[in-house]
């Protein structure tokens, strides 16, 4: 049996929207995590099948199980499991709470928010150390890939400390001696055609990186061919 690619997409989209609707019963972070997980699964599973073969695409979805069934399992998994608790049927606080303290799964947690604040300005508030804490938070978060973390670290080391230092030292200070009229200058300066763009890049790059990191932390993998 053959089918156009759009029909495959329709089958998958239908499945995902059923899942998304059913998952409304779950706490928001668990819902995102579940839908992202299934989406990622479909990406991998469908990469291995002939997209024109409807039976194969349906088989992938069938093996996953009905979306409602998966969500029912997730709801049940919020309760203590057979192995997870020693007590009878009494729910235990550690597994029942709707939103546990660790929300590393999706979106921006406290760690991520602190990181994107400390990376640019942490070094200015608390010289060097503030930025360093930002870097530690960046690297210990699970919301960014290694590439994101490298970009976050190297643009710029120290955050705004670097552009500020640049701005400070680049300024040429000139004084003229009133008695002799001789003007003497200290420091160094860049010609304006070079200095202006360099300053703009130095100041804008951290902002761009913060925007990039926020987008990356909030993203969910996109299902698609």
């Amino acid at each position: 049996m053959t089918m156009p690619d759009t029909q495959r997409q329709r089958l998958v989209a239908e499945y995902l929207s059923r899942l998304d609707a059913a998952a409304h019963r779950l706490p928001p972070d668990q819902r995102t995590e579940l839908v992202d997980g299934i989406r990622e699964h479909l990406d991998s599973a469908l990469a291995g099948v002939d997209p024109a073969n409807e039976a194969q695409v349906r088989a992938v979805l069938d093996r996953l199980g009905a979306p409602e069934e998966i969500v029912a399992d997730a709801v049940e998994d919020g309760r203590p499991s057979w192995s997870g608790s020693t007590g009878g049927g009494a729910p235990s606080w550690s597994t029942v709470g709707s939103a546990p303290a660790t929300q590393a799964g999706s979106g921006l947690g406290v760690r991520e928010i602190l990181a994107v604040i400390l990376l640019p300005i942490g070094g200015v508030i608390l010289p060097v150390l503030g930025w360093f804490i930002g870097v530690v938070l960046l690297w210990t978060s699970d919301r960014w890939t290694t590439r994101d973390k490298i970009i976050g670290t190297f643009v710029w080391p120290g955050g705004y400390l670097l552009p500020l230092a640049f701005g400070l030292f680049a300024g040429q200070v000139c004084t003229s001696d009133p008695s002799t009229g001789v003007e003497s200058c200290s420091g160094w300066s860049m010609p304006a055609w070079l200095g202006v763009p360099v300053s703009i890049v130095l100041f804008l790059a951290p902002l761009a990186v913060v925007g990039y990191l926020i987008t990356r932390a909030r993203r969910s993998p996109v299902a698609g061919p």
Partner: protein
Amino acid sequence: MEPRGLAPQLRRGTVEYCVLALLRDQERYGFELVHELSAVDGMVTSEGTIYPLLSRLRREELVSTSWRESETGPPRRYYRLTRSGQRALDEFSDEWARFRDAVDHFLSIGRPR
């Protein structure tokens, strides 16, 4: 919870340790874990139910996760065993061996060998 027979309950309680065991020596991503589990007959009835399980293992901090680029397609969430996951797995392995022997013992009573 409606009665669903012993086998599903047993599977439910033990499949999480099979996941932990698969992570003992290496990080794996979700699809890889599902693939390994469904390759063995009788372990997984519907593959999708592994994902809520992975989510719970993460919330209980038995596994930790990180996003990594994949050669093809969007980044993947990788799962890794934590120290407490390792401990839970070791404890379960001992307990399971005793439990299995005990059940086998009773099942074999009066049965011709």
